[in-house]
């Protein structure tokens, strides 16, 4: 049963926000003068001159250097620990163990189940058992080697299916099953009875490393008034602050968190900054001195979160004409040692529920059953990584769609066209997609640009002697905007000054996606001033309103709406004042490019700054505060039915690859990717998100995997963990389509995470199309492609 109270609340929010937005977005979209135009990023000049400060660039004078002693075992009891020798080493300021954590000895984005310092047990080789602060990094390293720990190794659990066995060693007191979730729509038995073709497949994906170029770092600086300041690269300052307060045992208002510009995040800097931030702060608390905790690349791989690995078993049923009738899936989702961002605990919807919701793909299927199990193991922990549980299930359903098309003797794009979401479609959770559904449009635009009809079905060797064979592939996808469930509010403050310049206060962080440019664009557009008239105040929890984390492709849409609401309060003052000064009714006034005009007599106008100055002199309000939370509803725990996210972005990708059938090597030679983004606020930045996302999806398909041996990560640095280079990524052609989202600023919805999602299966499908071999356990590296070709009976005939 759906919770009716919840529904009522949601409906109210929906109606109110709808009215607000419709009033606010009165300006015709073709008249936009700042938003919707490609602009140079506000921080580009600093980037190209090397002046932009990252965490590691801040002067180190006065800082102690923190280091973490990590567990040498994936699963063990701590029997004894002796830190005396380390404490006696000259230059060591503190050596801390579990008993020294002043508040809660646990942190986590959703569940605080990861110890700041492990006391009785370690659960993966990245676990911290002691912390050191010393005058130099060298001394801190030496101190680590002087700490003596006695362990009693336990049998590690290294597979999520093993974790569920009754005799499995228990990793946490509450057991190895962290969350089990169900999605039920229609009658699955009836669905398979109606099916004329039924296929079953299992797909498997490994742990991935984010491989952001900037290693994690945290600076914790005790303040003279007793508060704690923590700075560093981070996506979620408010989540970091919440954890710091609990770990230090102080109220939230005693902790101040400031974001330093990030050298890439991709979701990983939602979790990791909590980890390094809490540890740096505990050291700073004990020593009373600033502490710099900087991870080396190998430590980043050992310690921080990864993309969740999954084993996905699927059964699909279709009619001979291609209509899908039944979809049954089981997900074994590996969480690793700690809960991270995996579990589903309302109001925070973890990646696990997102995987479940997304698993049947962007297709209308009347009968659906999915069971999703999230399991602890003694591996590194799963966190957010671009797509948050969606890329994994897309790899499964998009490959299965191609395998089904082959079985039915259909062109894979036709099979998708028959079943793809369109306006009015009902999702597997029962959500009616009643606005902004541009999936079919992306399919058509992509097929046209790629010339699919001319290229599909013509796989062949490059020439008579070559061992290289070419093929084409498609991937389709959908992705939410916002975090979902509830608790997804976003606040903005805007101040206009007497000279017409403005400050925009927002807690949305910048990691390279371009938020520090798009948000001022929206603010300038709404105020009717120029881009350079708005300065964004960088995220600082003492200064900016609660904005939630910079995740879930939510920033442009949610913060954009909050900014529009904040500016409205200022514009009321400005327009009232201008109306008096010009003696023109308010509803005839328009603000554009720093001037306020009478629409019916454009010669009658005032400078924005003149009116702002008058407002200031007359005591009129020039401060605006906006708050926007998307309309959402919870999912029913028994059936998974409901509206988990308020709007989705849609996409279709097409690619051509060349496979060397003798070596298994794959080269991606052509790529077109089309997106329905609602509205591109900064089109050049949207293209950048698309191109970068496709490259990340390509890495997932062809080369990336954290290799684990008995619980130990083997490829710790970028020499062994390969990511795509200029020679791996083709010249991607991005196509931007705009199906207006009526709940977004100028119609915008999220774009950050969508691009990598269909990329991986598009490439895998192209490989299968080229050589006949299908790689169902990633990555499709030369060895796996070679084996897949052998399994398929050898290379295709010439």
């Amino acid at each position: 049963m759906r919770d009716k109270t919840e529904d009522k609340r949601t409906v109210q929010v929906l109606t109110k926000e709808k009215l607000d937005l419709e009033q606010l977005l009165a300006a015709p979209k073709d008249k936009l003068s700042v938003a919707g135009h490609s602009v140079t990023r506000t921080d580009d000049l600093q980037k190209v001159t090397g002046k932009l400060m990252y965490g590691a660039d801040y002067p180190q004078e006065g800082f102690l250097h923190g280091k973490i002693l990590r567990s040498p075992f994936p699963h063990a009891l701590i029997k004894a620990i002796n830190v005396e020798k380390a404490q006696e080493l000259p230059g060591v300021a503190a050596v801390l163990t579990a008993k020294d954590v002043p508040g809660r000895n646990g942190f986590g984005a959703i569940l605080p189940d990861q110890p700041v310092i492990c006391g009785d047990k370690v659960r993966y080789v990245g676990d911290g058992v002691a912390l050191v602060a010393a005058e130099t990094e060298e001394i801190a390293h030496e101190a680590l080697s002087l700490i003596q720990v006695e362990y009693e190794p336990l049998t590690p659990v290294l597979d999520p299916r093993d974790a569920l066995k009754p005799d499995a060693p228990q990793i946490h007191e509450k057991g190895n099953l962290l969350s089990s979730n169900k999605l039920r729509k229609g009658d699955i038995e009836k669905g398979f009875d109606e099916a004329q073709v039924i296929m079953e497949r299992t797909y498997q994906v490994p742990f991935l490393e984010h491989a952001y170029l900037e290693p994690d770092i945290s600076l914790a600086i005790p303040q003279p008034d007793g508060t704690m300041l923590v700075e560093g690269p981070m996506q979620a300052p408010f989540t970091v602050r919440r954890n710091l307060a609990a770990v230090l045992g102080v109220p939230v208002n005693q902790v101040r968190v400031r974001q330093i510009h990030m050298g890439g995040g991709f979701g990983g800097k939602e979790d990791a900054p909590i980890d390094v931030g809490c540890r740096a702060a505990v050291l700073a608390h004990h020593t009373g001195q600033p502490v710099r905790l900087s991870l080396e690349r190998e430590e980043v791989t050992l310690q921080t979160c990864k993309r969740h690995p999954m084993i996905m078993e699927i059964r699909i049923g279709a009619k001979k004409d291609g209509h899908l009738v039944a979809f049954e899936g089981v997900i074994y989702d590996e969480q690793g040692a700690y809960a991270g961002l995996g579990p589903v605990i309302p109001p925070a919807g973890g990646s696990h529920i997102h995987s479940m919701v997304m698993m049947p793909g962007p297709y209308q299927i009347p009968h659906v059953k999915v069971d999703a199990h999230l399991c602890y193991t003694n591996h590194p922990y799963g966190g957010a990584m671009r797509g948050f549980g969606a890329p994994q299930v897309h790899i499964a359903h998009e490959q299965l769609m191609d395998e089904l098309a082959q079985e039915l003797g259909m062109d894979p794009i036709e099979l998708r066209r028959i079943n793809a979401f369109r306006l009015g479609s009902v999702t597997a959770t029962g959500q009616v997609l009643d606005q902004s559904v541009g999936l079919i449009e992306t399919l058509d635009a992509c097929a046209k640009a790629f010339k699919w009809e001319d290229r599909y079905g013509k796989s062949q060797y490059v020439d008579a002697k070559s061992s290289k064979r070419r093929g084409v592939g498609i991937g389709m996808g959908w992705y939410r905007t916002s975090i979902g469930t509830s608790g997804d509010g976003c606040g903005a403050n805007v101040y206009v000054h007497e000279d017409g310049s403005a400050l925009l206060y927002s807690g949305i962080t910048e990691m390279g996606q371009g938020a520090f440019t798009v948000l001022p664009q929206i603010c300038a557009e709404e105020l009717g001033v120029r881009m350079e008239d708005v300065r964004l105040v960088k995220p600082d929890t003492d200064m900016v309103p609660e904005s939630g984390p910079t995740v879930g492709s939510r920033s442009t849409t949610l913060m954009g709406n909050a900014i529009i609401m904040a500016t409205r309060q200022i514009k009321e003052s400005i327009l009232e004042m201008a109306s008096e000064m010009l003696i023109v009714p308010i509803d005839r006034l328009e603000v554009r490019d720093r001037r306020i005009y009478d629409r019916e007599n454009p010669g009658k106008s005032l400078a924005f700054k003149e009116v702002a100055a008058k407002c200031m002199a007359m005591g009129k309000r020039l401060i605006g505060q906006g708050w926007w939370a998307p309309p959402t509803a919870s999912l029913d725990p028994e059936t998974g039915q409901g509206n988990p996210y308020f709007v989705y972005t849609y996409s279709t990708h097409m690619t051509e690859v060349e496979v060397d059938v003798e070596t298994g090597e794959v080269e991606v030679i052509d790529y077109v990717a089309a997106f329905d983004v609602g509205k591109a606020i900064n089109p050049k930045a949207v293209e950048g998100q698309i191109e970068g996302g496709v490259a990340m999806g390509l890495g997932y398909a062809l080369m990336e995997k954290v290799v684990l041996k008995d619980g130990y990560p083997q490829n710790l640095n970028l020499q062994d963990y390969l990511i795509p280079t200029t020679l791996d990524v083709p010249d991607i052609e991005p196509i931007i389509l705009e199906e207006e989202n009526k709940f977004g600023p100028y119609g915008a919805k999220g774009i950050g995470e969508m691009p990598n999602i269909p990329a991986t299966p598009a490439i895998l499908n192209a490989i299968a199309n080229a050589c006949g071999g299908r790689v169902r356990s990633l990555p499709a590296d030369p060895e796996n492609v070679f084996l897949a070709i052998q399994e398929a009976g050898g290379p295709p005939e010439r």
Partner: protein
Amino acid sequence: MSTTKLSFKLNGQSMEVAIAPNTLLIDLLRDDLGLTGTKAGCREGECGACTVLLDGEPVNSCILPALKVAGRSLTTIEGLANEEGDLDEIQQAFMDEGAAQCGFCTPGMIMNAKALLNKNPTPNEAEIRESLSGVLCRCTGYRKIVHAVVTASQTKKSHK
């Protein structure tokens, strides 16, 4: 620890410093000289974010002993714009094309591209991709970076 004197040219200026003999070039630049535009991503010569030009050739400063630059000429990202602050064509093109996202690889990319254009003022796309293959970028998919280098080469040509 004993120190050794080191004389070299940095961004056009002669300079002499006293350093520990095992100092790596990146640490000399970042920690001793405060030139933090050169980034450390992996410290094993794999990601290329630390690329600087030594007598015009791109080198990974994270694995190069600082003493190796004795008597030679070193250029970092801070030395690319001229004294009046006019940007190099490559810097301008990176801004115009939107080639920087998080920006962490940007100094390494630009220095690498600078070395390429010095040697080959009109490279084709394949030559650009080959030349930049030692610098990793996780954000951009490289497309706008490659386009920026093409644009910069054309701008340079039209100025001559």
